[in-house]
Structure formats: structure tokens, C-alpha cells
């Protein structure tokens, strides 16, 4: 598993290898330039100002000699100043480019990951989404991606930069004075280990604080959403105490975490300063003995000063680098889910033929069959109504027709063509399905109605809304067509949502139109109004309506009664009321109510 994660990380980096290597080179340049400054200072102090031997490589001295030797440099110190500024600018430029490039690389990866995830999730089969946990998926797509992004942008280069710094510092210092180098680095491993172990260890305190915050937020959230209950029972005081307890717990847990961190920062600061102190003291002793120059002292003290901070960071980064691999794994889990396969062979036949279910059996994911050996025919261009008890398999029938699922056995044909061979997008584009629980996008009402088309015409949108009996309330809304729906906008009632969902489905070029119990959320009159409009709209559209309203059912050309995964009765209204069965039982309610009424009144 571990190597798989590493490979995945490698792949992400490889796609932006230009930017990443650019950033790495810039890191090297910046580190080098930063270290050159103290070296230049030392050379100035020792060689140019005090006349001691040079510590610079030969080529530098050749240039200095060409200018007029160290005395010339001492008289023209502005040259050194200029060099200092130049070094600082070089380091600055490198740092800037590094920052820019690593951010570009990391953001590219994040963008690609996000898009890939979004695309992949959309292509996952319907069955996946039936079971999907929204919160967890969103978390993976957002915070896990963010963890990976942060790793690539901040941590990867910091690790590299720290390692480079240590390497460069070691080489330079060892060459200047090996023993002194040893003394001045003696606490570095300890500092690193301290940081590393501390942050490994303190994870629990972080988690405890997070958990306490979660508990506090939960009480707050429940109090706010349940404000009616709180007031109705007059429990304000109790709630305040409950919240105080959680809030206090969060305070204490956070405080504990802070105390730990405070100890860490002061101790590691102390260690760093002691290391600086030790370096300075040893340097002074060496310098008094004449073993090193003042310049070397400057080099050692400033090198160590530069080194200590990145070392502490390195320990911290490495201790939570594991997190990003866990995140990567969580992302990969989504990407590993198989999507609906491509079907290059698929056909696109006309879809206004008869719909035939031939011995179809179907069950969700190895569970008990919902449809059992079901056969029936829906004649082209007719309106067919389906009546069935909860769990009788009505919705499965319509889901199968859009190829959201595939039958376990048997076949479904439209105009003689098996729908399993029909192109999925083509089929779904021409079979309009209004789901039982419609989802509206957080867009305006206009965009929601026109959502199925790329460039919907205004007139068509209006007509669709009118036919779906939605125009009235749309125009009555505060901002009319521009009213925003969803989380950040208005809340629509169930019936209003359904009507928008019907309107947006009508926008498509439907050969077959299916209402999965979607007319039940509107009142009887609106139901009739919509069906009237549908009749006028498409004369050859095959319409399937799932409903339990007798009026709605009775006006269909054919009624199918489903019980327990089978079609138990079919026929017209007249035929069915004559027979004993589910249909006639529902039909008889009205008569029964009338009788009850008479009884009650008398």
C-alpha cells in the first residue's frame, strides 16, 4: 500500500516536473546566496580590513588582484556593499521564483486532482450515489486535496531546503575548522529529534482539543436548530449550563495543548540559543588562541543562526508528513471506484417504439430481487400509469429505463432494440425522468429550468414553466426568474420543487417521459393542469406516470398494477374497477368515505 501511495505522489509531481525542478534549483540558489553573505563579510573583516590571509577560492582572489588587491577593496568598500546587495537580490529573486513556481506546481496538482475527482464522481454509476455519504466524500474532495496541496507547496520544498542548508553549512564549516564545526552543530540532531518527537507526541492533545471543539459545536448547533424545543420547555438555563460545560472543556483542552506548545517553543528556543551561545563561546576561545579569525567567528555564528530555525521546522514537517499520504490514500479510494464504462459500439436508434419488458428480474446489489420475472408492454405514444404499493418495484422500472441500473436477467427493448446496446447519454437525453425527490441546483429559477440544455431559449423556458404549472409562483417570487434557489437562496416547498423539476425535464427533447410519483407533491388540480398541458405538448411522447391518485390513474390509456415485483393486473380504468384487486380497493375509498360521511352525519 505504501509504495502505491508513493507512486501516486510521484505521478502527481512528475506531471509538473519542470516547475518542481525549477523551484528546487531556486532553493539551491537562494541557500547558496544566503550563505555567501557571511562569507563575504568574513573576508572583508579578515582579508581586506585586517590584512589576514584570504579564505576565498583562488578565482575570487584573482578578480580582487585584478582590481588592485585587498587594499584597493578596503579603500573601496562600496564594492563589497554592492556585492552584498547583489547577493541579497539574487537570493530574493530565487526565493520569489521558488515561491511562485512551487505554488504553481502545487496548485496545478490541486486543480487537476479536484477536476479529476469531480469528473470521476459524476461518472460513477447511479448505484454508487444511492449509497454515497455526501459529507465524507466532500471532505475527501476538499480537505484531503488541501492536505496534499499543502504538502507539495510548503513541506516538500522546506524539507529540501533544510537538507540543502545542512549540507552546505556542513561542507563550509568543516573546511574552515572541523573541530569548531562539531561544537557548533552538536545540538542540531537533538533539536531535530526533539521537534520530531514532540509533534508526534502532541498529536493526541491536538485531537482532544479538536474533539472538544466538535462537541461544543454540536451543542451549539443543536441548540440553534432546536431553539423551539428549548423555549417550549423553558430550558434556557439548562442549555446555558450544558453549553458552558462543553465550552469549558474545550477551553481546558485547548489550554492544555497551548501549555504543551508553550513548553515546546520555549525549550526549543532555549536549545537554539544555547547552541548559539556555545558556538560563540568556543569561537571566542579559538579566536583568543589564534586558531581562527574574527571573520571565521562571524561565519560560524551567522551560519548556525540561519540553520537552527529550518532544523526545527524539519522535525515538525516530517512528523506530520504522514498525514498527506493518508489523505492521498483517501483520494485514491474514490478514484479507484469503477465508473460507468465507455461503450463505443453503442447505437442511437429512434426511441418512439413500444417499450417491452421481457422476463426482467432485478435486485439492488445482490439484495433480494425487487423485480421478479416481470413482463409487460408499453405501447408507443400512449400514456401509461403505474400503481403499486411501497416497495413493489415501481421506481426500479423507471430507473432501468434510463439505464441507471441494468437488469439481472431478461431484456428491455424500445422499438425492438435492447436498451443495453443503446448509447447511455443518448438514451438519457431522450428519456425524460422526473425523480421522486428532485434536486435543484443553487442557481436562479431560470437557470434551473433551462439546466438540461446548453443554450436554452427564453421562450422555451417560459413555455416549459407554464406547462409545469410553475410560471405562477415563479413570477410571484421576489426576484421572479432571477430568484436564487437552494442553500443561499429561497427554500421552495416540495410541490414547487417538483414543478421546477418537471419544467426542466420538459425542456429536453423527450421521446419518453416518466414521472416517478412526482405529481403527488402537487395538489389534485395542479396535477390535472400539468397532465392537460402534457397532452397538448407532445402527441407521440410515450408517457409513464407513477401515482396513487385515482383521477390521475383513471385517465391513462393503460394502467399497470404492481405488487411485490410483478405486474398483477393491467387494463383500462373500466376494466380494472370491475375486477377485485388493489386498483378497485383504492377506487372504493371514495365511496367508502361518502358512506362514512353519511353515517357520521346521521
Amino acid at each position: 500500500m505504501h509504495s502505491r501511495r508513493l507512486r501516486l505522489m510521484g505521478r502527481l509531481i512528475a506531471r509538473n516536473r519542470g516547475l518542481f525542478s525549477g523551484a528546487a534549483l531556486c532553493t539551491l540558489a537562494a541557500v547558496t546566496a544566503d550563505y555567501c553573505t557571511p562569507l563575504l563579510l568574513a573576508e572583508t573583516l579578515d582579508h581586506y580590513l585586517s590584512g589576514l590571509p584570504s579564505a576565498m577560492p583562488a578565482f575570487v582572489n584573482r578578480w580582487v588582484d585584478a582590481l588592485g588587491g585587498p587594499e584597493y577593496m578596503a579603500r573601496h568598500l562600496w564594492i563589497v556593499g554592492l556585492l552584498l546587495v547583489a547577493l541579497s537580490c539574487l537570493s530574493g529573486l530565487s526565493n520569489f521564483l521558488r515561491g511562485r513556481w512551487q505554488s504553481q506546481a502545487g496548485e496545478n496538482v490541486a486543480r487537476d486532482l479536484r477536476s479529476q475527482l469531480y469528473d470521476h464522481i459524476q461518472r460513477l454509476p447511479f448505484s454508487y450515489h444511492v449509497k454515497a455519504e455526501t459529507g465524507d466524500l466532500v471532505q475527501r474532495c476538499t480537505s484531503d486535496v488541501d492536505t496534499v496541496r499543502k504538502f507539495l507547496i510548503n513541506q516538500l520544498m522546506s524539507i529540501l531546503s533544510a537538507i540543502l542548508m545542512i549540507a552546505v553549512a556542513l561542507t563550509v564549516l568543516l573546511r574552515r575548522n572541523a573541530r569548531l564545526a562539531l561544537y557548533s552543530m552538536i545540538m542540531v540532531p537533538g533539536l531535530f529529534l526533539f521537534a520530531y518527537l514532540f509533534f508526534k507526541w502532541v498529536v493526541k492533545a491536538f485531537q482532544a482539543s479538536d474533539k472538544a471543539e466538535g462537541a461544543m459545536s454540536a451543542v451549539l448547533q443543536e441548540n440553534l436548530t432546536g431553539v423551539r424545543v428549548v423555549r417550549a420547555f423553558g430550558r434556557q438555563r439548562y442549555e446555558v449550563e450544558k453549553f458552558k460545560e462543553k465550552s469549558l472543556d474545550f477551553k481546558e483542552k485547548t489550554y492544555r495543548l497551548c501549555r504543551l506548545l508553550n513548553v515546546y517553543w520555549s525549550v526549543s528556543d532555549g536549545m537554539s540559543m544555547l547552541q548559539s551561545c556555545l558556538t560563540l563561546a568556543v569561537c571566542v576561545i579559538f579566536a583568543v588562541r589564534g586558531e581562527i579569525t574574527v571573520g571565521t567567528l562571524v561565519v560560524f555564528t551567522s551560519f548556525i543562526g540561519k540553520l537552527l530555525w529550518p532544523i526545527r521546522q524539519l522535525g515538525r514537517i516530517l512528523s506530520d508528513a504522514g498525514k498527506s499520504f493518508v489523505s492521498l490514500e483517501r483520494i485514491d479510494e474514490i478514484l479507484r471506484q469503477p465508473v460507468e464504462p465507455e461503450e463505443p459500439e453503442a447505437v442511437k436508434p429512434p426511441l418512439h417504439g413500444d417499450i417491452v419488458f421481457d422476463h426482467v428480474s432485478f435486485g439492488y446489489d445482490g439484495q433480494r430481487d425487487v423485480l421478479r420475472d416481470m413482463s409487460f408492454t408499453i405501447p408507443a405514444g400512449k400514456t401509461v400509469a403505474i400503481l403499486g404499493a411501497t416497495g413493489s418495484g415501481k421506481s426500479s422500472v423507471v430507473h432501468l429505463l434510463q439505464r441507471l441500473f441494468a437488469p439481472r436477467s431478461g431484456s428491455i427493448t424500445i422499438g425492438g432494440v435492447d436498451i443495453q446496446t443503446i448509447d447511455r447519454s443518448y438514451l438519457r437525453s431522450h428519456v425524460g425522468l422526473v425523480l421522486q425527490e428532485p434536486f435543484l441546483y443553487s442557481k436562479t429559477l431560470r437557470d434551473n429550468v433551462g439546466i438540461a440544455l446548453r443554450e436554452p431559449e427564453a421562450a422555451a423556458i417560459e413555455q416549459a414553466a407554464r406547462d409545469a404549472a410553475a410560471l405562477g409562483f415563479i413570477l410571484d417570487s421576489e426576484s421572479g426568474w432571477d430568484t436564487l434557489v437552494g442553500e443561499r437562496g429561497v427554500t421552495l416547498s416540495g410541490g414547487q420543487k417538483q414543478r421546477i423539476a418537471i419544467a426542466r425535464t420538459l425542456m429536453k427533447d423527450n421521446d419518453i417521459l416518466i414521472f416517478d410519483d412526482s405529481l403527488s407533491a402537487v395538489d389534485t388540480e395542479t396535477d390535472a393542469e400539468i397532465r392537460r398541458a402534457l397532452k397538448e405538448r407532445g402527441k407521440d411522447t410515450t408517457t409513464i406516470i407513477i401515482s396513487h391518485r385515482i383521477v390521475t390513474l383513471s385517465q391513462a390509456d393503460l394502467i399497470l398494477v404492481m405488487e411485490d415485483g410483478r405486474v398483477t393486473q393491467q387494463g383500462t380504468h373500466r376494466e380494472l374497477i370491475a375486477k377485485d384487486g388493489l386498483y378497485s380497493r383504492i377506487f372504493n375509498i371514495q365511496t367508502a368515505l361518502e358512506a362514512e360521511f353519511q353515517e357520521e352525519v346521521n
Partner: protein
Amino acid sequence: MQQEKDYTQKFDLSLWRKLLRYAPRYKKHLAALAFFMGVNALIDVAFPLLTSYAIDHLITDNGAAPTFFMSRAVEIAQKLLHCPPLTAFIVLYVLLVALSVATIYVFLYLGSVIEVGVCYEIRSQGFQKLQELPFSYYDRMPVGYLMSRMTSDIQRLAETIGWSLLDLCWGVVMLLMCSATMLSINWKLGLAVMLVLPPLGVISVWFERRILKAWRSVRKTNSRITGAFNEGIMGAKTTKTLVREEMNMEEFSGMAQEMRKSSVRAASLNALYLPIVISLGSMATAWALWQGGSQVLTGAMSLGVLQVFVNYTVQFFEPVRNIAGVFSEMQSAQAAAERVMTLLETAPDIVDSPEVIAEFGDAFHPKKENWPEIRGDIDFEHVDFRYQEGEQVLKDFNLRVKAGETIALVGPTGAGKSTVVNLMCRFYEPTAGEIKIDGVDYRKRSQLWLQSNLGYVLQEPRLFSGTIRDNIRYGKLDATDEEIRRAAQLVNAEPFILRMEKGYDTDVGEGGSRLSTGEKQLISFARAILADPRIFVLDEATSSVDTETEVVIQNAIARVLSGRTSFIIAHRLSTVRAADRILVIEDGQIREMGAHRELLRQKGAYYKLYMSQFEEERAQEILGS
């Protein structure tokens, strides 16, 4: 709905002072924090001076070089310890390190005490305030918005109060001390070096603002992306049926690209800032080295002192950056502070008068001994009502309910049924007219008095995290386990409770999410019955439950209602039929009123409703079985 403001132009110190009034005990801590920060900055200034002493007096023995009290300090240490100057120097250095570590620990300690404490104090007061604010406030404020005020906004301002001040003190002291030392060594050179400060400050402020702005835009895009994922996942089924995958993807790609663009922009600004500041600082260093170096040659300056100069010029940019950072941080946290302040200062519009509080106590300190017994007669007299900024819902509404009567309210959505109930509970107050309980205007009693005598069961039952027992006990906090069992038995909830793994101690999950709707309803009935209220309000659920539960619930309702004054917003035939009186409400008026049979005989609105609404109910019953 109010839009969240997230940036204010003007810096407002008085706002922060006002906020601090909500956490007065931390003023002392703040003062101590400022002090220790200053001490720490002094120590930071001293370290380069020690190095300079080492160079000039330990290594090169340049007796003429200034030592800034360091030689005095070393001499004292020498005398006390009877040791050579080098040892004394090291001891001094270690002492300074120890002092520094101590101050670091103390200011970190103070900073976190302030941050965590201010957070807690303000949050507690915010919560208390939320318990006092009326429902009209909750109508205006989405829960998510209140949540972010109470969590992230408060966190943000506590951080700012705790740590910004710290940065500010350190920066100011550091800057002052560096400048003073440089000026005292060589005022000409010092002044020249300090010339870079103004441009440094200007650039810092410019950048800090831009960077903050850039990050804000990143955060905004980020929340849009989160929204898109949310919608993409929740709407995946719909997307599939509408074949909108490609169009969605195009929209998303645009967003992802925009996110990349704004993030890179923010990161680039960030990456540009420090190099520019450091390069600018390096000019000061170069100048110091050139001028100072020349003086070293002539002997006018020692090597050690030159080193101090160079060191300070390198360190210069840090306090400047700190100070600039504090100002832009405070400016941006100000929006959060303003939001929190508005919450804390919102005046509730349903309040008990001072006389009422004096007699009956408030929501947190009730004086139960003065509470009159409640019978349950309710009178609506010429009641008008409108929601804030809404149209009139009730006009001259009159209703007289005798104690123990059951009233069913029926009628179309939005006719005003809930309004009648909300007014009765004093969740809102009439805009005109009065509501009398036992013949006395309810505004002459405390809110808690009424609400403590009220049972209320919502359409969507709301439970709290905790066990089933905890949830039932919510109705009567001092109830014994036996009383809880009796309440559960009375509404017939016990069978399902005992079927659960841990019985009464089963955890219901957040908001009761581990129970079915029917089960939640039964628990909420038990909770209400335990409170033994005189007045009962029931907003009957429309969502269907299975037939068996349905029967149980109906029985529960019948038991809960017996002997109490009750209002039911009814959807079910059986409930309506059992009521003493049925009110058909349309457009805020009572259209028909009477017992079930009377109304049916009239063959009016009730009859029509009865026929259509209950026909569907029956059909559902048959199909649901």
C-alpha cells in the same frame, strides 16, 4: 437574510476596547503580556552587543570600543564568581538565554491564557444572548451564520486580541532599541541606515493589505468549490438523469482554474514581499558596511561595533513587518469583531417588563414561588399580527378556548395556523390586541412561566445528542428513572426502546439521527408528557410512518391530550375527528368553526378538505401496507 461583510476599510480601536469590556479580567494579563514582550525584545537587542563585546574585548582587546554596559556586567559577574572574563562572559550569556527562555514561556503563557479565556468569555455571553433572543431573530439569521459567529469569528478576534498586541509590543521595543543603540554608536551612520525604515514601512503596509485581500479571494473561491462538490455529489443522481455531466464539468473546471489563479496570485505576492523587504534591508547593511568599514580602517570604529551595526540592519525588517502585519490583521479581524459585537448588542424584542422580572424572575433566575397556578383558559382578543417586514397574517383574530378543550386547526399551508400557535406560545407577540391566559394578558407574566407550563411537539421532532433517557428527561430535569419509564409507557414508546441494544441508555446520535422519524416522535411525546403541561401544542407530522407506528402515535396523542388545553395543527383524519372543536383557517381568518359532524353537515370548506385530503390518506394506507 443579511449578507456577511468581511472587510472594513476604517480601523476602529474603540470597537476593540468595547469588546474587551466583555472579558474585563484579562486586562491585567494584557498589560503583563505587553511588559514581558518588551523585556524579551530588550534581550533580543542585547545578544549582538554581547558578540561585539566578545570581539572587541575578549579577542582583540580594543579597550576604547564602546561596550554598552556589557563590560560592566562582565566585571560584576567576574567579581561575584572570581573567574576569568571569558567564563564570566559565558555565564552572562547563559543567564541571558535563561532569562529569554523564561520571558518567552511567560508571554506564550499569557498569550494563550488571553486567547483561550477571551474566547470562552465572549462565547459564553454570546450563547446566553442567543437564549434570550426571540424567534424573529432566528427567522432572519440562518443557523450556519450564527454558528460561524459563535465559532470562527470569536476565535479570530480572541487570537487577534491575544497575539497582535504581543507582536506590536515586541516590534516597537525592538525597533526603538535597535535605533537608539545605533544612534548612540554613530548617529550619522545610524540616521543614514534608518532612512530605509519609511520605505520599508510603506512597502510592508502595501503588501500586507494586498496579501490579505488575495487570501480572502482564495477563501471565497474555495468555499465555492466546496459548494460545487457538495452539489455535485448530492445532485449526482439528478445530473445523470439530465445528462448534465459535461456541462457541470465545464463549470467546475472554470472554478478550479480560477482557484488556481487566485491561489498562485496570493502565493506570488507573498513570495515577492519578503525578498523585496530583505533586499531593501540589505542596502542598509551595505551602507553600514561601507561607511563603518572605512571607519574601522581609520580606527574610528571597532570590528565588534561594526558587527553590531551590520547585525541590526539585518534584523531591522522583522519588527517593521510585525507592526505592519498587526495593523492589517486587526483591520481584517475587525469584520469578525463587528459581527460578534452586533450579536452581543442585539436587543431582544420580546422582553419581560422590569416589574414582571421583579415578581416572577427571568429565564435564568426564575422565582417559582411567585408563579400563579395555570388553569388553561386562553383568549385571543382582537389579535393582529405581522412578521417583521412581512404582510399582515392575522387581522382581528378572536378565539376563546376553555381549559381542557382540544382545538384542531386545519387549512391550507400559509393560512396562519402556525402563527396562531406561535402567538399562543409567546414565541411572537401580537402587533395589536391581546392574548389572555386565565383572564390575564400574558405579557403581565414571565415568558418562562408560560413556557414552563407548555408542552410542544413539533412536526419535525428535534432531539438532542445523548441517550433516550436524557431526551425524555428534558421535559422535567429532576424526573426519576421511574417517571421517565412511566412517560415512555404512556405513549407506548417502551416496546421499541427496550428492543434497542442499550434500552433507555441508547445513544440517539446527533439530533436523534439514529432513530426513525416515528421513533423520534414517540420520544418527543414522552418528553412532553413528562413535563405535565397544562397547555399542549402539537404540530402534527405530515411525513408518513408505517401503519403500526401510526396507530401507536395516534394512541399516544390521545393520551397526551386528555385533560389539557390543546392546540393541534392537524393533518390526520383521526386526530381532527377527535378534537372538541375544529377551526378551518384561511387567510388569517376563521372560516368555519365547530365539531366534526357539524362541519361535515355544512358541506363547506371543511367538507371539501375532508374529502380530498383524507382520500389520499386512505390510499397511502392501502399502498403502504
